[in-house]
Each structure stands twice: as C-alpha cells, then as structure tokens.
C-alpha cells in the first residue's frame, strides 16, 4: 500500500541540519521534495504557516536568528494552528524540553534527525 503523502515544514537555519532532515524525511516518509517546505527562521515559519495550506507536521529548531523556535511555536499556536509541532534541538536538558513543550510543541526529539527518529514521529502522529 502506498504511503500517505504529507506536507512537512522544516524550520532550521543551518544548512547541515537542513540537508540531514531532508534526507531523513525522504527516507522515513518516502515523500517527494515538493512536500517538504523550508523556513530559515521562526519569523519565516510563522509567515509560511499563515500563507500556505495546512501542514501535517512542523519540525522546529530552537536557536535561530530573527525569531527562535520557542517564540515561533507560541505565535503559531496563537493563530489557532493545531498541526503537530516537533521540537528538534541539540539542547536536550529537561529545562529545554519543558520550555519547548510550554511554548506549545507536542513532542521533543534531540538532534540529529535520523530515519528511525522521523519514522517514530510520523507513526506517533498518525502520518504513516
């Protein structure tokens, strides 16, 4: 049976993590590149969520220029968006996780993303 096509927004400012995440999403979901959108900071993510058709999943980095992941998550939730937001950060201390969840994220996974982690995330949110 063919996998469900999904729309993912990846919010990440660093090229190496974008390349890794793109490959992991493709491997885990079998998606084509045109369903993975990129935003290079939190402000760009808020604009995309406002202007583009609904996403199935948002992968959100924390430390970014212009607007960080916590603030972007808060603003997206304030818009009434219920899309699952998964925080992806290399700071995995309990306080970091709690701050992201407090901002409105549904789940936290430490960097780097892998096929296995993405597979688990897609399954968790019923996107497989």
């Amino acid at each position, binding site marked *: 049976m063919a996998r469900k096509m999904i729309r993912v927004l990846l919010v990440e400012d660093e090229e190496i993590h974008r390349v890794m995440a793109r490959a992991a999403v493709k491997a885990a979901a079998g998606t084509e590149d045109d369903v993975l959108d990129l935003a290079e900071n939190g402000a760009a993510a808020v604009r995309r969520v406002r202007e583009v058709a609904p996403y199935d999943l948002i992968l959100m980095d924390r430390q970014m220029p212009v607007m960080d992941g916590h603030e972007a998550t808060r603003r997206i939730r304030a818009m009434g968006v219920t899309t699952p937001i998964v925080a992806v950060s*290399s700071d995995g201390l309990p306080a970091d996780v709690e701050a992201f969840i407090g901002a409105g994220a549904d789940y936290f996974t430490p960097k780097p993303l892998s096929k296995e982690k993405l597979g688990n995330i897609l399954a968790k949110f019923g996107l497989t």
Partner: protein
Amino acid sequence: MAAALTSQLHALVNNMFATGLLDDQFQQLQMLQDFSAPDFVSEVVTLFCDDGERIIGELARELDKPNVDFDRVDSFAHQLKGSSASVGAQKVKNTCIQFREFCQQRSRDGCLKTLDLVRTEFYDLRNKFQAMLQLEQQIQACYPKH
C-alpha cells in the same frame, strides 16, 4: 586496484570508530545515502568541515576581544556541537560540551584552553575525512561510467 583501495577505506573508517573519533551517528548518515543521493555522505561531511573551520575561526576572534560576549561565543559552540553530532564526530562534540561549560562559567582561560582541544580534535578528524573522501573518489574512478 579498486579492491586494495576499498580495503584501505574500510581500515581508515574502522580506525575512526575504534579511536572514538566517530560514533554510531556516522552509520545513520551512511544509511541515508542511496541511488537517488549517491554523494550524500560526502555532501554532509564537506558541510561539517567547512562549518567547523569557520566556527573555530569565529570562536578565536570572539575570545580575542577585550570584552568577551560569552552568549555569542556559546552560540557558535552550540552550532559546532550540533554540526558535529550530525556527522557522528564524537570527540569534537564532547570537547564542544566542555567548551560550553567554561562559557557558562564566563571563563576566558577555560574557553581558550578548550578551544585548543576543539581545534586539535576537529583538524584530526577533518584530515581523516579528507583522506576518506579522496579514497572514495579513487575507487569511483576505477569504475568507468556508462
């Protein structure tokens, strides 16, 4: 010829694991390389090497200033830690963690000493990555393209 080069490549990568330069994340990286992205590992390793060189330069410049902005320094160290974690550069990642502890203590001396360690670990790994990519290119050159 190709068999000898392949054997050299395996020995080099095995040694990088055995000496703790690399951890399991490098295997995750290799698993993401397929026919649709045959140069994926090379692309990510090259990004890591370029990022690392740039960030180490930024760290040295920031720590050389009369008034060190430790939040800015920590932000660069955070970037290098994340980049290292992506390629499984275990030793570089661990020295970045130590470096950030000195950053939180606002210790310029601690940061400078640890930056030397970061630099040593990074350039050791970069040299080995470069040797690895060179061997891969030589192996590919043994097989004519159709």
